[in-house]
């Protein structure tokens, strides 16, 4: 009996240590990826069956509840703006001079035919706020050693019920992610590459999103410029800035 209790306690302790280790990893990942504010100029390359398109945009974000992005090119998309405040998203179209507010299941729709949904674009909460984690293994990706983390949602409003994340053991940057629905179905895969040290933190500058329910090569998100903790004027996160 004494041995059984010791064995049980040992198993529980190992599990607890594993969970603590995973949370520590996620904290370091969050520290790399998240910042108080960020300004990102990026290209979104959407690979279609007939052709590919590149959409350039500039995005401003503050904390995890405010973000604003404006599309700069191509000409057809130029001037289209998106504003996210808390759980609300507004899209402004210059061609019709109309603003549409999206909410609920509408946020699961694809952004401009890409493999990203509005929900994916809006999501910038810390992983530790949304998921419980445990380390489930180790793997080598592109010659780099990674921990494989199993993340299970601890909040009801997480976009994906569970995730599997491969985190670089030295740079604490995810190199691969698999996003799952509650049913266990694999919904999306992301590959994160070109990790660079920017302002003292490691950051992936090329991300390929692949919607597993769609055919094709997925969508590349390429960071052209990024500034962390920059000053962002307050008016940027107001509805008035949509029509400016």
């Amino acid at each position, binding site marked *: 009996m004494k041995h059984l209790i010791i064995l049980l306690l040992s198993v529980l302790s190992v599990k607890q240590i594993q969970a603590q280790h995973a949370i520590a990893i996620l904290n370091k990942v969050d520290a790399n990826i998240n910042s108080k504010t960020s300004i990102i100029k990026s290209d979104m390359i959407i690979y*279609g069956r007939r052709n590919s398109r590149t959409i350039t945009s500039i995005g401003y974000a503050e904390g995890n509840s405010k973000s604003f992005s404006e599309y700069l090119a191509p000409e*057809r998309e130029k001037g289209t703006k998106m504003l996210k405040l808390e759980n609300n998203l507004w899209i402004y179209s210059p061609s019709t001079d109309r603003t549409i507010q999206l909410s609920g299941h509408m946020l699961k729709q694809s952004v401009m035919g890409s493999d990203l949904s509005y929900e994916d674009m809006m999501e910038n909460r810390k992983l530790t706020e949304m998921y419980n984690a445990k380390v489930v293994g180790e793997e080598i990706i592109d010659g780099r050693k990674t921990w494989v983390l199993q993340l299970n949602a601890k909040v009801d409003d997480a976009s994906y019920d569970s995730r599997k994340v491969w985190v670089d053991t030295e740079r604490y940057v995810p190199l691969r992610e698999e996003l799952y629905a509650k049913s266990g179905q694999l919904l999306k895969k992301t590959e994160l590459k070109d990790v660079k040290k920017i302002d003292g933190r490691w950051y992936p500058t090329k991300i390929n999103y692949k919607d597993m329910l769609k*055919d094709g090569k997925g969508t590349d998100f390429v960071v052209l410029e990024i500034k962390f903790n920059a000053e962002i004027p307050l008016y940027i996160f107001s509805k008035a800035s949509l029509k400016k």
Partner: protein
Amino acid sequence: MIKFIFKAILRDKNRSLLPVIVVALGVFLTIALSGYLSGMLGDMVEQTARFQTGHVKVMSKAYADNVDQMPNDLALLGIYELHEELNADFPDYKWVNRINFGGIIDAPGENNTSKGQGPAMGMAIELFSKSSGEVARMNLENSLLSGKIPEKSGEALLGYEFANKLGVKVGDELTFMGSTMNGSMAFSVFKVSGTVRFGSSAMDKGTVLIDFTDAQQILDMEDGTGEILGFYKDEIFMQEHAVETKVAFNAKYAIDTDEFAPIMKTLADNSAMGMYLGLVDSVAGMFVFIFILIMSIVLWNTGLIGGLRRYQEFGIRLALGEEKGHIYKTMIYEALLIGIIGSVVGTALGVTVTLLMQTYGIDISGMLKDATMMMPSVLKSKFTPQLLYIGFIPGVIAMVIGNMLAGIGIYKRETATLFKELEV
């Protein structure tokens, strides 16, 4: 002898009334149910042809592989030339363009708010082209609940339940947001020109109908279309002809390895429609089989009861020297006549009910409130010349078989014991 048997049938009602009623009832049920099922399934097939599949449909090969996803990025291009080719090669068909698209419809409220919003199932048809016949084909004039058919660019028809959900009425503006053929964001403003009851619950709840040229412009599909639908002359689906057309058309593009080369499919290639068409064909055969089986058993039983009732009569006839074969033969003639009388009555009743059902139908719209599949909201029977014999022949055959089985007992009677049996 026929005249003699006919008089006997008329005079001895006990001998003929029950079998006539049984045969008439069986024939009536066969015709009425067969007509009803053919009508119901036929309506579903026709409705699907008008709204979704046409009698034949031309798409790009890549589009056809993912047709359920409405993949307009894989649409057909160069349709002007393709139409010329189709009209030259298959003049028996009317060829029309259709674009199905998805997106979000937003009804703007005050101060940049939305008063209603929902995912839309967009359908673009050749509304402005008089020669396309699309307005009549979709029965839009009769389906209008308010407003009018769009007459100019920027106007749209809305499913009436969708309009109620969005809280919009005729004259209100709507914003559409979706993706162009190239995946760009598509924004457009429409004015509601009218609301429609499509007769399909799924469409009434989420369809926005616009002109084809408007959709081409919004979705960046110049000289392109999602689908080209072909409707055979008189709008009647002829499966064999459709298959011949498909084979001839696809043979021209068989060696084309381009995934955007056109390919033709028939209505029956849609898995659900193929099943329905198969059902329509087999419904009649199924009914005849079940009818003959059940009626033979019932009439065998009726024949046995009749045989027992006429046990004494047959005994006397045998005692008087009539041959067993002759008695058996007269019994079969009698069954034949009763079968004919019952079948005539049953056919007359069945055809009358079918014609009434064809004219008036049964309104089931109340039961389709939560339906998500396309089906007609009024179920109607369909009269076909086949109904004139589908019950008649089995009615006669079942009566004859039943009596043939029951009459076998005549051959088992022993002349030596007849007098004892007859208590003479």
